[in-house]
């Protein structure tokens, strides 16, 4: 039962949205969602790597010998990650600074390798791109949502703009490490509730 390209795309937005449905890629989710901006930046960077590596791996899927496939995937992914790293340094340097070592760590983001292994290596180019795009956008949305919650409560701002009056006392816990875990855990709970029909 072949799914259409649209279906492959849409599933990443809800049915398999990372990291809520696919519990993968938690580290950046926790680390770079202090603000919406960082979240979106990370999501876009990951999405870019995801689409490119899906595309390339899907193209090469008949060439790559299965014994060294993981090594090949790693090379492909690492290459694109470095591309992103260089591009971000050159054009969005502040974002690059605030994302820190989590840009190179996209390499070991389980989502990217997971999609390469589970999807791109078995599917044609177009569905692979759709899959990568869907998951990437889904991931970006999740990070942005989490970033929004943490930024609004933790700093009282949204995309840097104050949302509450001056009397607002930021709930600083939210932007600290423990708050990241707790917040993600509770959002996961909400997603479970929403998904339960």
């Amino acid at each position, binding site marked *: 039962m072949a799914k259409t390209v649209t279906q492959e795309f849409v599933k990443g937005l809800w049915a398999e949205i990372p990291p809520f449905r696919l519990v993968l890629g*938690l580290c950046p989710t926790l680390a770079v969602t202090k603000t919406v901006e960082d979240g979106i930046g990370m999501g876009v960077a990951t999405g870019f790597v995801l689409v490119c590596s899906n595309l390339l791996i899907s193209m090469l899927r008949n060439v790559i010998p299965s014994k060294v496939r993981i090594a090949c995937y790693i*090379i492909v992914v*690492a290459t694109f990650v470095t591309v992103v790293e260089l591009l971000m340094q050159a054009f969005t340097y502040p974002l690059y600074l605030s994302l820190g070592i989590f840009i190179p*760590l996209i390499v070991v983001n389980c989502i990217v390798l997971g999609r390469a292994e589970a999807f791109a290596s078995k599917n044609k180019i177009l569905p692979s791109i759709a899959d990568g795009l869907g998951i990437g956008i889904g991931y970006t949305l999740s990070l942005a949502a989490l970033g929004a919650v943490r930024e609004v409560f933790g700093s009282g701002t949204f995309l840097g703009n104050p949302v509450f009056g001056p009397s607002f006392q930021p709930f600083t816990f939210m932007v600290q490490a*423990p*708050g990241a*875990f707790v917040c993600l*855990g509770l959002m996961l*709970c909400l997603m479970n509730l929403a998904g339960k029909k």
Partner: protein
Amino acid sequence: MGDYLVLIISCILINNILLAQYLGNCPFLGTSKRMETAVGMAMAVVFVLVMAGVLAWVIDHYVLKAFHLEYLMTISFILVIAALVQFVEMFLKKSIPALYSGLGIFLPLITTNCAVLGVCLINVKEEYDFMHALVASFAYAVGYGLALILFASVRERIILGRVPRPLQDTSIGLVTAGLISLAFYAFKGMV
């Protein structure tokens, strides 16, 4: 000596790789449901992380920095780690089967454990010398193992509780990890 002590305490307790730097969460949540798997993973991480830390430092120092190839850091480190894990796995299987049976299933997971790559990158970023890099890698790994084992012991109890359904498993695990991370604020400023 005091310098190293500060580094060790800082890496284990204060800048705990898992709880403060958010690295290595996927295997953290995955292997902490049972004590045995947590201990296995903790040992495997200590084992691989120290070797990877040392190797990455050597490569960074004698290859990347020497030839101004810093931009290839990510790709070279990840390849080194992947190869190292493969090699360790093969070596253990042949030479120390007892250890292999304990750690074997965790080794492949380590390639994608961002704590390993993360520590290598941190070591470079902090510009540690060789001994500091070695000590830091070890301390980070111990910190990871410590957090993992503590978390597993707490989690074993939570699983037996009556956690509401939507919160079960990963969700409550994350909240608990958060609270453990909160507790680790106790050590703030201690060095």
